[in-house]
């Protein structure tokens, strides 16, 4: 009897042990698990360090190929007359053939990514003032907000060029542009702003930012970068005298100077750069659809963006143009034909070529064109500015005088593959394609398909956004 009791007691002990083990296992779990590799929203503006991290994130957002890292800078070139798109992407071929469908995914991605950059800027502008911490000074806060204003202006200027007709056609300032979202409050339902409203906003924002920005860097917003952007805006608006003045101000900043040769691409410290987006191997262009991905020949790259014959001819009008001879490579395009490609962005493998967003050469070209068309000579005469650039390109002797066509031709040859060509043609009322090129008839000023549709996925969610004609 005793023995049996003993056994039973022993068993009860084992039983209790196991049950308590069960309870241990079931209750030990803590369900409040936080992510290890991201920051919850509540903490993003909790202190200076994190808040400034969001400012770095703003530039990082602009590093998306869809924003400043080349996809659309190059797309503008093949929509115009500089690049003969040879690649496989159907969505890019639609752009090349003026056969865009509103469901074009690349265009939706571009809209999405650009508004993400605008959204980051709005978050910074709205939240920086209330970040706790007395060591985060008023000047530091103002600078962070001014950087956001600069980036927001830059993106809006690009977007307004893609999604609406330029000032020079149709209703001008009343042409529909993109919605002007200037607050991080979610769920606003704003109609498309007019081009005039977008331009006015950019101008005001840049003027507001300039006093708060700090100088001394080429990879972030600075007062001169903001003035350079103003000069670009004025030129697009046809405010030529003001464009010349703004460009002249930037040229007057001794932090910048024309590089003596064309080795400045991807040289972050070169005096050539006013604002260049710093790309590194571990943090570079984010796809194969950016500057480096598209513009190198096979097998170094996709071989998508060879020169058009028309661009080659433009360079070959005068022998020895270094912008052609020093900045080209030849190789296979995507269709196995030997073509000429730019070598401004040669690092396909790591895609770490910096994006040349604003460089001093643009300011000389803008000053020259502004002065020429305003009939002024702020800083220098147009011919002096143009000769300066031609001299660097190895074109001698100097010209005695210049025409507008010559200024625009120099602008084309200087800035090819950097995303200026389409807007330069549009604002001058010219066809996007030259005679003899495909689809010339679809490329005339004001033609429906020279601008993009508002993406269908956006209109599905915000039907109050009017679609562009023809789509």
């Amino acid at each position, binding site marked *: 009897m005793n023995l049996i009791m003993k056994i*039973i007691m022993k068993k009860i002990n084992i*039983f209790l042990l196991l*049950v308590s*083990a069960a309870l241990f*296992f*079931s209750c030990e*779990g*803590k*369900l409040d*698990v936080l992510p*290890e*590799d*991201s*920051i*919850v*929203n509540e903490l993003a503006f909790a202190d200076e360090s994190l808040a400034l*991290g*969001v400012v*770095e*994130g*703003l*530039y*990082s*957002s602009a590093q998306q190929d869809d924003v400043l890292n080349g996809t659309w800078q190059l797309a503008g070139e093949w929509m115009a007359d500089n690049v003969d798109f040879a690649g*496989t992407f*159907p969505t890019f071929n639609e752009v090349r*053939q003026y056969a865009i*469908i509103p*469901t074009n995914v690349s265009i939706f991605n571009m*809209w*999405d990514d650009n*508004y*993400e950059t605008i*959204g*980051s800027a709005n978050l910074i502008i709205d939240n920086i003032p209330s970040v706790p911490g007395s060591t985060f000074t008023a000047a530091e806060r103002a600078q962070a907000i001014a950087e956001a204003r600069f980036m927001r202006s830059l993106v809006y200027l690009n977007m307004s060029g893609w999604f609406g007709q330029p000032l020079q056609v149709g209703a001008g300032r009343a042409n529909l542009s993109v919605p002007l*979202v200037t607050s991080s409050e*979610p769920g*606003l*339902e*704003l109609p498309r702003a007019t081009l005039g409203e977008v331009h006015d906003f950019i101008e005001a924002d840049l003027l507001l930012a300039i006093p708060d920005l700090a100088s001394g860097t080429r990879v*972030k917003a600075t007062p001169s970068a903001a003035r350079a952007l103003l000069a670009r805006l004025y030129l697009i608006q046809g405010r030529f005298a003001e464009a010349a003045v703004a460009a002249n101000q930037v040229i007057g900043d001794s932090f910048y100077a024309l590089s003596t040769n064309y080795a400045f691409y991807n040289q972050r410290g070169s005096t050539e750069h006013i604002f260049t987006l*710093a790309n*590194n191997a*571990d*943090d570079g262009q984010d796809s*194969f659809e950016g500057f480096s991905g598209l513009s190198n020949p*096979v*097998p*170094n790259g*996709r071989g998508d963006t060879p020169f058009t014959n028309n661009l080659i001819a433009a360079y070959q009008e005068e022998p020895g143009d270094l912008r052609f001879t020093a900045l080209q490579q030849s190789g296979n395009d*995507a*269709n*196995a034909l030997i073509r000429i490609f730019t070598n401004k962005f040669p690092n396909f*493998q*790591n895609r770490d070529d910096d994006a040349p967003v604003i460089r001093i050469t643009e300011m000389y070209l803008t000053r020259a064109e502004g002065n020429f068309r305003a009939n002024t000579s702020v800083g220098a005469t147009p011919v002096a500015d143009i000769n300066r650039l031609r001299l660097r390109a190895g074109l001698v002797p100097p010209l005695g005088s210049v025409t507008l066509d010559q200024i625009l031709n120099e602008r084309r040859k200087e800035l090819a593959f950097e995303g200026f060509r389409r807007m330069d043609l549009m604002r001058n009322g010219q066809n996007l394609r030259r005679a003899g090129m495909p689809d010339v008839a679809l490329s005339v000023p004001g033609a429906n398909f020279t601008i993009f549709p508002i993406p269908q996925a956006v209109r*599905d*969610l*915000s*039907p109050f*956004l009017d679609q562009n004609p023809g789509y």
Partner: protein
Amino acid sequence: MKSKLTWILTPLLALFMSFALAQDKTISGNVTDQSGLPLPGVSVLVAGTTTGTQTDFDGNYTVSAREGQRLRFSYIGQKTAERLIGTSNTINVQLEEDAQALEEVVVVAYGSQSKKKSITSVSTVTSEALENLVVTDPQSMLQGQAAGVQVVATSGVLGAAPEVRIRGNSSIGSDSRPLFVIDGVPLGDDFLTGGQGGGQGLNPLASINPNDIASMTVLKSASATALYGSRGANGVVLITTKSGTKDGKVTVTLDVNTSFSRVTDTFDLLNTEEYIEVRRRNGVNVTSLGADLDFIDIVFREAVSTTYNLGITGGNQQTNYFMGMTYDDQQGVLVGNNLERTSFRSNISTKANDWLTVGLNFNGSLQKFDRTPIENAFAAPYTIAGLQRPDVPIRDANGNFTTGGNVGGGNVVAQELLNLNLSSQTRILGNFFAEIDLSSLVNGLKFKSDIGFDRVSVEAQEREVEILTPGGSAFNSINQQNRLIATQTLSYEKTFADKHNFNFIGGFAYEQNDRRGIAVEGTGFLSDNLLNVTSASLFPTTTSDGTTSRLVSQFARGVYDFDNGKYIFEGSVRRDGSSRFGGNNQYGTFWSAAVGWNVSDENFLKNATWIQDLKINASTGTSGNDRIGNFASLGTFFVSPYNGNSGLRPTTLPNPDLRWERTTGIDFGISAGFFKRRLNIGVEYYERVTDDLILNVPLDPTFNNGLNGRNENIGEVTNSGFDVNVSSVNINSDKFKWTTNLNLGFVKNEVTRLPETANIDEAGRRFVALGGFSGQRAIEGESINSFYLIRALGVNAQTGNFEWLDADGNATTTPVQADRVIAGQANPDLVGGLTNTFTFGNFSLSTLFNFSLGNDVFLNSRGFVENVRSAFNKTTRTLNQWQNPGDIAIIPSASSPTIARYDQNSTARLEDGSFLRLKNVNLSYNLPQKYFEGAFVNSVRLYGTATNLLTIKSDGMSGFDPETSSGGGDGVGAIGEEFFNIPQNTTFTLGVNISF
């Protein structure tokens, strides 16, 4: 020695004497069942001979035999009886019901039940149904085997994860894969590898060796899965691995087979001459680059694979064990695609004493994949084969690989030959359990403690060589999933007054799932001989990340039945707490209730001859779906650096109220056997309503800081339908047996409610965009996967223009997005399988057809391979381009204004995806004993299997596989879309199975 001989010889002599002396006589009689009713078709055999007969319709038989011999009476569902032939010439026999046959056991959540008492919706796939299959993953074993279980083979590439849907698609935005549980341990099935162009990575369950699997049970209804709570809504598949025996015998089985595979159906591409002609017709003059290649022949091959499988079962009353080893050397049909697998399993359990039973199941496997990019990848061989000009040579005049002119920048032949693209996956999976019989405390009480872990580690090694990637590139990553699962249960079983049976189980479970990953990448190598990242000069990637989730559960199930299961009542409840959900909704409770009535146990049917086992059951219950990732309820910023400084970018919006998707189901089932169980039919009707659907509700990025959506519980999906199972013994003679098993799953799938915040389409219906290539939508009142497309009319024979229908149904050459309509849907109305097994003598033949009816497939690669304006190669369909009035063409005139847009998304790419496929044919032959008599061998079986021998599909699917899904198997987003998917393979396997 002498005495032994005498002992052996004497009986033999006696036998001989009896043979010599006995006279044949005619014996007749009548055979009845337990109720005394005559049994027709009973096999009557003179034991030890081949003499025999069958009873006639009235149960009578006549047979010739001698006195002293024995007659054996056998019949399905009855116990076999033997009678010694005495002096009488009449032998009447009453056969007893074989209780064992009815007591067939069904594995259910946290236990098992007798088939008779199982009243929730469960399908069992038996070892007989599995043994003739030649498959490499557990999902494929279910294809065509169980009613209401749809398995789509998404790609013919090695390691592709099949898409599994149980009773339809019940989720729009979350992963709708069922939960797989192996020997009680829920398996981790996170994708630890990238898709390399496909919609998903390598099949996470490919490391579960099909050869180790004894049977599978599919829990289909919410009532059956409620005990898996927050993970039950997509259904649960319970895998039971092989176990030992109790008879003291040790059986060793060796199976060796070799397979030969080739691809089933592919594009028919232009040759060089045709290519140049199509380009010329469209205004581009190209000159040949010299070659004339059919790239399909170059990227595909006849693949040879060999499998060795060794299994050992043994044991006695105390201890039993199974040991398994498999080595598998597989070639894929795609060049450069290979897999080498080694897998071990040991299952052992022992009864330590009268109150303690302990066991250990342990499985280690190593899989080495040599991968190939697929579908939407930069350098996917099949994609390139479809696109590359046929005149681009692979090698130049000097025999060196060319690189120029190859689509995507590479040369796929060089790539597969020279680059490394390896993924080696190690899985260690096991559980230890101790079962304590507490009958000394309370009679019928048992406690079981089960601790399992599941560790998967995947190492990827990639290396690109100089000629394809100047400077070279190397990538190395390790991704791990570690899971700990602890389950403690108490069970109690008791019968009162002989008629009242109680069965109860309750317990706790805890699971923790940790993911860790590291990856490095390097570029800029001095030599292709330097393989690893350490030798690079630049390091684009250095990452390490981790994430954890936890699940805490309590659960219980009670079953009461009266009079050996005449009436059955079952109920269960589970409470889950999960770290994945919002702070406001971390806990959820799930439950089920079921009733069953074995009508055949009632007196009025007990004696019925025409019907047996009539059972009616009804059940209802709830279960959940937690497959939304770990932190879907949180709003977060992710880390994104700029210029060497760490930065933050917003990535998701928060929703602290986020909770489980919840499925509530009702089920009605009726099953019965007819004609002495020669015919068995089971029909179940179900309705599953899934509400609180978790959707990433799309938000306009314009007004939400660039963010595209937020996870919300909205909307409702209803799946309803019938599952039908028919099995029959068509012929059952001594020499020839033919059995048939048909399963049908009819599903109707409908989005029954979407929120007011959903998008509104042109017709005023609410919808959620699923994306994909076609812009698939979940539309209120329609199928969850609707194709929303412009209707294509085709090329106008008179004008040469491509024409579409506008919204009003009029022909147009300038369609707009507003002309889109619901043009089809991706979910089949009916899926099923048909198995026939024929046994004649030592031969056995089994065939398995599977089919799918009523689904559409979107062929997205047509946008590439049928685009005459591109410089790519194309299919021969593009030769059919309109030239002159009257031409019935596929491609519009080169001068038509529609030429730039004819290949936009439209029904021109949508085809009927219905198919009937001869999935598996197996012929096997058991070598007669006489060939190996005296050897140590017990049995030798030779077999040949053919997989995907025949496929019947619509004409429009020519060149494509009807089983396709670029989105992959997880069910998130669009399904039923093709994009250069590798078609399935036709495989012939020859094998031998020896047991000793």
